[in-house]
């Protein structure tokens, strides 16, 4: 099982059932996870596509799409930030 966190406008599109999810056996990397999400939830997949979407694994930003995913990871999808 992994924990998926969707922030901001992604949260409004994402299926709440994705918060705790068992990934299929062939999903081992962030790129694989994004492909799987795009198939399972096309609207969410399109929203995540932007080059400005950032991904955090266990609360640290990761830019490498080949980053491996381990059981119990917390993976967050972050739209462009707008603080201040």
């Amino acid at each position, binding site marked *: 099982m992994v924990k998926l*966190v969707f*922030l*901001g*406008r992604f*949260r409004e599109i994402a299926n709440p059932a994705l918060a705790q999810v068992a990934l299929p056996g062939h999903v081992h990397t962030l790129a694989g996870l994004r492909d799987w999400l795009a198939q399972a939830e096309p609207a969410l997949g399109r929203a995540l596509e932007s080059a400005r979407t950032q991904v*955090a694994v266990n*609360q640290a930003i990761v830019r490498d799409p080949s980053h491996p995913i381990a059981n119990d990871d917390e993976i*967050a999808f*972050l*739209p*462009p*930030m*707008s*603080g*201040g």
Partner: protein
Amino acid sequence: MTIRVTEEAFDPGAEIAAFNTALNDGEGPGDAGALASFVGYCRAATAGRPVGTLYIEQYPGFTAREIQRLADDVSRQLGTLDLLVVHRVGTIHPGEAIVLVAALAAHRAEAFEAVRLLMDYLKTDAPLWKKETGPDGARWIEPTAQDHARRAKAGEQV
């Protein structure tokens, strides 16, 4: 250094007074000669459209830590003596303070610069997501081209 991400409304004047007192109580750095601050408020209208409420979402834990990292960077760059950031999250009404940044330094130049630089960082790099609700519905706000230009000028990824 104090970083606070809070759902509660706050009084910027009281926060600044407390920040100042903490530095002059004999325990803080004694060479502080300048305090600069900035307060961002929730506007009643944006470009002529009334704003009902503002909603700001955080990523609990991550957000405060990232703001801390940005503040550490500003402190290192400018040699400030202390920094204060208070950022609201949740539902915010017009007239309420959204963000307070204050800097204590030996002299005014570093204090002004620290506040400006940290605000530039917060606009594009703080993990916060802002949604405006007005009469024509709600929309998520993203940094403007101007915010990105200011951030680019402020420095590379920290």
